[in-house]
Structures are given as structure tokens and as C-alpha cells.
């Protein structure tokens, strides 16, 4: 009996070849117009760079200013990228010939981006090169270069609880202010209880703005937590002390799951993380904004001894190789920047992987809490220079900071 496949005609094959070429031949020979919407969205949300200008400066405190940034069409930015509240911008500057970058959370409402406005709020950091530079140099009209909105510190309804206790310290208020705006504008849907730690009533940032939002929506509640002795007595509704477990419990829903979001200085994380341990919340309900740049690796208990104070780094970027010298107390990224070499960077906390580079020889120390590399990266000698500290001389391959 013939195989049943023989009922199909083999000779149907040859005409297929001709027909295919004929189909090509008959098609129009012009470039298709326009972009598909997937590409439009991708480019709108993730522009390579945004070229902006300072349109206004608002003094928030003696050492803190807000900068209103608008697009600079002359340098190619027509509109601002939309963002979801909690995202940051990386600011690119050159200070005394040294390329420097820092990540700052957007403090403005996402809606404002549609009207061509971002706001960054910058507080002076002790010994902080960038914050000092910005506070001294940025004025109306200053040209500014920033990244696309980045980061993972935004609300996700499929992951986070409907009630969120937001713990802010100092200028760590910025992403929460943006979230509060987004809730009031209907762009986010969750109930926010903001426990905002400041030293005293005078050092609170955005007090009026926060009050205005809280008055507009019952989904935002603001509680000031003041640490100076007796400071809370001067402010009705304020709590005295620090962001403790007891305080979180006081304001958290008693019978429903809640998320805790944290943003503040590294010392605040160290304190609050211990407090949170006592609450035994599932990990999914605790979210930190990034750690920030890491300093003083030698203070870590797993940091090796006998590390030379000075190291040599030979770095190849595309087809250019340079050898520089730096301090082993600095990250690989800092050493390169101090030698005038720009490195791709975004978060500077190990997390985003934007600076992903190949370590060809030598050894580095990576603080445990900043270890976000992929498994295969460790196997194949790839590092994140922003949180890698040289232990020996290094040979590196780094992508250009395009």
C-alpha cells in the first residue's frame, strides 16, 4: 500500500520558489512611513538622553533647592519622558574636567511631565561633590543633561499591598511626594500613610505641598516624625522620635496586609531595617529605594587585609587603552572618573547594571548588600564598576558612556 503522504503532490514545490520571488517583485519599493506604536512608546519612555534647561529654582531650606526642568528643543529634546512616580533621573555633569553622575528621584507629579515639567529636589550632602556643585551653579537657564526616568521604586498593584506605609528620611521624601501627587491625580491607586522623619518642624521639606495633597484626597495621610527633643509638641499631629516598629504598627492597618516603602539616607536604612525585622513582614512587602553610592569598603567585616593603598587600572574603551592610578578606597567607577574617563552609569548602587564591564585580570571587592550581578557575570568575570573596589591592579574592558 502506498504511504498516505503520497496523496500530497510533490510537484507543488517548484512553483513555490517562483511565486515567492514574484510576490517580492510586485511589492512597492518605498521605505514604509512612520513608526509602529511599540517603538513610539519605547522611545518616549526610554530616551537615550534628555536635554533640559532650568526654568525655575525654589529654595526649600538653607541647604536644599528644587529645580524645575523643561525640555530644551535647541539641543533635541522636544518633550519629557513620562514616568511612574518613584523613578529617578541620573544627572550628568562635568566638574573641573571630571565626568560625574548622580541619581535623584523626581519630586514632581508624573502629570507635570506631560506639561513639560520635571522637578528635582537636591539637598546638600556633606562632602557631596555633585549636590554642592548643583546648589552653587544651577540657575534659571542652566543647561542640564539627564537620563530617562529609571529605577524600580514605583508602586506595582500586582505585587504591593493596597495600603503602603512610606518611611521617608530627610530628602528621601522626593519619590513619596511624587507618589502622593500621582495618587491625587488618579495615576496611582493605593492608600499612602507617609511617616516622614525630620529633625524639627523647620527642617520638614514640602510641608505645605504635602498638606495640600492630603487635603485633596483621603488616600494620602501625612504624619511628621520629629527627632529633636520636644519638637513634636510644636506641630499638631506630629510624632516624637524615630521611625520605629511601634510607630509603623500604630499607623498600619490592623487586619489587612500592608507594604512598607523606605527612602532615606543609609543610616536610616540601618536603623529601620532592624525595626522591621521585629514585625516579621514577608519580604515582598518591604521595598527599599536604592542604597546610594557606597564608601569606605575597608569598614566591612569581609573586606580583605593587605590591600595596597594605590592601584593601577588599565582600561580599554572601544579601541582606546589607558592606564590610570587611583585609591583602593574608591570604586572602579570613581577612579576612572577622577582620571577624566566617563563610564556608563545610572544608579551607582550596583542595582541597575548599566555600567556592566568585563574584568580581564585582577580582583575586586563587592560589598554584599550591593551584589546584584547576574550569576553568569560572576562566572565570566563581569563586574559593575560602580560598586567594585579594586584589591589589585586591574585590566578592564568598559563600554563607552555613549
Amino acid at each position, binding site marked *: 500500500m502506498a504511504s498516505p503522504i503520497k496523496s500530497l503532490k510533490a*510537484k507543488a514545490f517548484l512553483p513555490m520558489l517562483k511565486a515567492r520571488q514574484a510576490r517580492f517583485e510586485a511589492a512597492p519599493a518605498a521605505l514604509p512611513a512612520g513608526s509602529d*506604536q511599540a517603538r513610539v512608546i519605547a522611545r518616549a519612555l526610554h530616551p537615550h538622553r534628555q536635554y533640559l534647561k532650568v526654568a525655575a529654582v525654589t529654595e526649600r531650606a538653607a541647604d536644599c533647592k528644587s529645580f524645575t526642568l523643561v525640555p530644551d528643543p535647541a539641543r533635541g529634546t522636544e518633550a519629557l519622558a513620562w514616568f511612574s512616580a518613584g523613578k529617578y533621573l541620573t544627572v550628568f555633569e562635568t566638574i573641573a574636567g571630571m565626568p560625574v553622575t548622580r541619581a535623584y528621584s523626581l519630586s514632581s507629579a508624573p502629570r507635570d511631565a506631560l506639561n513639560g515639567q520635571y522637578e528635582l529636589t537636591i539637598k546638600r550632602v556633606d562632602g557631596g561633590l555633585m549636590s554642592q556643585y548643583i546648589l552653587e551653579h544651577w540657575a534659571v537657564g542652566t543647561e542640564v543633561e539627564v537620563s530617562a526616568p529609571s529605577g524600580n521604586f514605583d508602586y506595582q498593584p500586582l505585587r504591593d499591598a493596597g495600603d503602603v506605609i512610606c518611611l521617608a528620611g530627610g530628602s528621601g521624601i522626593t519619590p513619596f511626594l511624587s507618589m502622593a501627587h500621582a495618587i491625587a491625580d488618579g495615576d496611582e491607586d493605593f492608600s499612602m500613610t507617609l511617616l516622614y522623619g525630620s529633625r524639627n518642624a523647620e527642617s520638614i521639606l514640602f510641608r505645605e505641598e504635602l498638606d495640600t495633597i492630603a487635603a485633596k484626597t483621603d488616600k494620602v495621610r501625612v504624619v511628621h516624625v520629629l527627632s529633636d527633643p520636644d519638637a513634636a509638641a510644636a506641630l499638631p499631629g506630629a510624632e516624637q522620635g524615630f521611625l520605629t516598629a511601634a510607630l509603623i504598627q500604630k499607623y498600619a492597618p490592623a487586619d489587612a496586609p500592608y507594604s512598607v516603602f523606605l527612602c532615606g539616607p543609609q543610616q536610616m536604612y540601618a536603623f529601620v531595617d532592624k525595626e522591621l525585622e521585629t514585625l516579621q513582614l514577608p519580604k515582598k512587602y518591604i521595598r527599599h529605594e536604592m542604597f546610594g553610592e557606597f564608601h569606605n569598603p575597608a569598614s566591612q567585616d569581609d573586606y580583605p587585609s593587605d590591600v595596597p593603598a594605590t592601584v593601577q587600572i588599565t582600561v580599554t574603551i572601544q579601541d582606546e587603552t589607558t592606564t590610570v592610578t587611583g585609591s583602593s578606597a574608591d570604586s572602579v567607577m570613581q577612579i576612572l572618573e577622577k582620571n577624566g574617563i566617563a563610564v556608563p552609569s545610572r544608579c551607582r548602587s550596583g542595582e541597575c547594571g548599566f555600567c556592566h564591564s568585563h574584568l580581564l585580570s585582577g580582583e575586586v571587592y563587592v560589598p554584599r548588600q550591593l551584589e546584584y550581578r547576574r550569576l553568569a557575570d560572576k562566572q565570566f568575570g563581569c563586574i559593575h564598576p560602580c560598586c567594585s573596589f579594586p584589591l589589585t591592579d586591574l585590566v578592564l574592558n568598559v*563600554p563607552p558612556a*555613549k
Partner: protein
Amino acid sequence: MKEYDVIVIGAGNGGLAAAATCAKAGLSTLLLERHNIPGGSASSFVRGRFEFEPSLHELSGIGTPEEPGSVEEFFNRLGAKVDWCKDSSTFRLVVPAKEGDKDAFVNENGVLVTVDARMPVGFEAFSRKLDDLVPGSYESAMKAFRLSERMYKAFDCLGDADGIAGVLKALPYMPDFMRMTSHTLKEGLDALGMPKKAQDIFATYWCYMGSPASRFDFLYYMAMLHGYIKNGTGIPRLRSHEMSLSIDKVIRDNGGDIWYNSEVTKVIMENGKPAGVVVNGNKEVRGKRFICNASPNFVWSDLFAEADIPQKQLKMTNVRPVAATLTTVYLGMNKTKEELGIKDYSVFVAPCSDSDEQFALCQDYFSGYCIINCLNEIIPDCTPAGTSQLFLTSMTFGDVMKDIQPQDYKKFKTKVAKDMIETCEKALNLTIQPYIEEIEIALPPTFSRYLNTPLGTPYGYMLDMWDSMIPRTLQFMQDQPFDNFLFCGASQERGDGYGCAYHTGEKAANLTIQALKEGQ
């Protein structure tokens, strides 16, 4: 200025394979990639305490020690080391019942379904299982597999033997070869007398290539299915990033250069042919020959002056429909797979069993079509103790984002993800939502951002009957734009898939190596 023997544009799977093959052959090779890591789809990303696999379901090209698969052999040829984890399952297809379905039954999950097919590895075992599910389908399934065995022999003869001897050895297989490639999967299975319901189960993998049974050629479908069923499949232990970095290492170890964050922004033409590229808008590099892993649509619109583009390339771009686009939801779970009640690596949840009906429903979101994978089934310790990771995939066709504005995108993608999660929860009687510790959602704009393809497709052009694998392969050279510029990757003859992309990259490299030899 240095002139490279070959410049490879794009470090996706095809570009990596091309650059590694060229570098290993001693050519001076430059691989240019716009992102900061290699692989395109073959990568990974970290969220919290989870490292997610972005795209790989499984590699059909991982065989057994006695019979290594094509992907394994490719890595062996390069000397690239990867720790493969074997998967000895294939797929489970679950079709929840609709009201009024007469043949509905309650499955092991307590869900009313019309199909629940958990298919084993091995032609015999697969066909027996199919016969259990749809009596009378054993013979037709075995016939289909025997045909695919014969087709592999034909490929071997054509590929291995020198010249005409190989062609002569392949001759006895040619009539069936021509029958299968000129008829659809549906026509083929009809001819073999396979019952309709068995055909539906048999065609489950149609989505891996994005063409349903009435538009997918019988030959290529059988070649693909053969790869999955014969010896099972595998995945790399450290996600696809391990595969990509292992090839990156081969390129470097063999003297090749790789520049990341280095986007080709223009191709320099001389005497009607590419002679170099501009990188990041500011750096010129010259090359003798080029292999391009980037999507042809955007290569033409973004890198060339219109006058320099061969007319045929524009015509091809205009007439070939873009293949499937994907949406993926990555879930880091704070429960183990046992606690969640997951028993399979790969479950295809479909609103109906017929692939053409599925295809019709996938013209937009909320189709009820979703594949759910659990990596811990193959790599139990791929997440910390007490956790697991899930990976949900759905498929769409066309510009499904057309009504979405950037500011509405987050809400929309959350809605799509919720629908996909609920589809899986219902179909498998699972509880997923309360245990999500990390989530990332990738829609076509995500793929567009990372792959830079039209509509964000990872799949290239639709493998339709008129533009199917064998005609694409036979006409490969006449479809290339310049004699020193070859394409590779998902846009080429084999469509999407890691193994397919590696193959096209290696092939373009071998043609390039040969051309340079002949030129000397």
C-alpha cells in the same frame, strides 16, 4: 585606520554565532552591540533575590551524551562551555471547557476541561499517549515521526557528504521532502489520517514559530517537533546570559573585539557597497565584509540613505508580514512550586484547541491564551529556598499597542499581566497573586527597546506558506542585499529560536570566511 575583515552588527544570538565563528577562523572581527550586554533575547535580569530568564523556554538542540543536539554541537565546535540542564518533559496542553462543551471532564486540578494532554519525550511514548487521549491516532503520529526521521537523513546527506555524492544519497528522500515543504501541517496530518483532536495536540508548538496549522509548512513543523520530542530538551543552568557570555568569551579569546554600548548609526557606502560603519554617530570603522543581526526593516530605514538601498530589499520589507509579538510576565514567588501546586515545567493554556482559532484570538490581548513555565521544575535551586519563579507568555499579532499612549502604558501592562495571571490561575486552579514578591512585565515596547525590531517582534517575519523555511533557504543568496553584507538572526531563513539564530549566524560566517579566502 584599522580595517576589519568582518564587522558584525548586533550581538544577538545570530551575531554572537557569526562573530565567534569568524574570530575562531582567524578573521579580524569586530562585534558591535547597542546594549551593554550580549545576547539580545538571550540574557537575564535581576529583581530582588530573583534572576529571571527573559525568553528561553527550552532548547530543542540539547540531546543526549550519545546523540548531542545541534545547539550542543555548535557550542562544542566553538569550545564554549555551558552547564546544560536536561528537561525530560515536553508540554502540557490544557483547554478549559466552555459552557455547553459536550466532551468536558474534570482534570487532576479539579478544573473542567476539554483537553488536558501532558505529553512525554520519545516518538513511541508520545504517540502512545496521543492514542490514549484520542484513540486511533497512534499510527498517524508514528508515521509523522518516521517522516521527520527521513527528512533529517536527507538534511544529513545534503549537509555532510561532499558535493554530488551527498545530493545523490539524498535523492530517495526528495519526493517526500518536496511534498512536506509544499503542504501545510494541517494538509500533512490530514493525509496521514490523524484525527482532528489529535492534530490539535500535535500542533501545540505552533506558537514557537507563530504560524498556525493552516499556514505552517509540514516539513518545518515536523523538523521542529522532532527536535523537542526525540531526546527532550535543555536549558543553561545560569539563564541564557550564561550562553551569551560563553560565546562572548570565545570571541575575545580568539582575538575578536566586542564593543558594547556601540550602536551602528550609519553604514558607509563606497562604490555601491558597504565599506564601513559609523558608531554612536561619531566614530568610523572600516570593514571588508559585514554580517548583520539587526532587523532589516530598521537597517534600511535607520542606517542607509534611501538611494543606496537595493530596490528588492525595500520590496521584501513591504510585503513580508511581521511575525508574532510576545508579552511576558516574570514572577518571583514567595512560595515553592510544591506550595503553589505546580507540577509541570511548561503548560500551554489555550481557550480552544485548534491552532488557527487560537491564532485568530491572538490578534489582540485578553485572548485566554497563555503559556506558564516554572524554571524550578528543571533547576530546583534557581531561586532561594522557599521561593520559585514563574514565567508567563502570551502572543499577539500586529500593532496591538496602537491605541496606547506612553502615559497609559503602565496601567495597560498591569491589566494585561493580571489577565494572564488569572487565566493561569483559573485553568490550573492555582493561587498566584498573593505570593508575588517580584514582578516584571514585558510588552512589545519592551521588546522593541531591547531588540529594536518592527512591532517589537522577536520572531522576524511570519513563516507563512509562501515565505516558508525551505524557499527562504534555497533563495538565501538572492535575497541578500550586497555580496559583502549578509543578514543573520530571526529575520532569516529559519525564523526565531536560539538554535535557528545560531545556525544563521554560523552560516553567514562560513560564507564570509569562504569569500575572504577566495578573494585572497
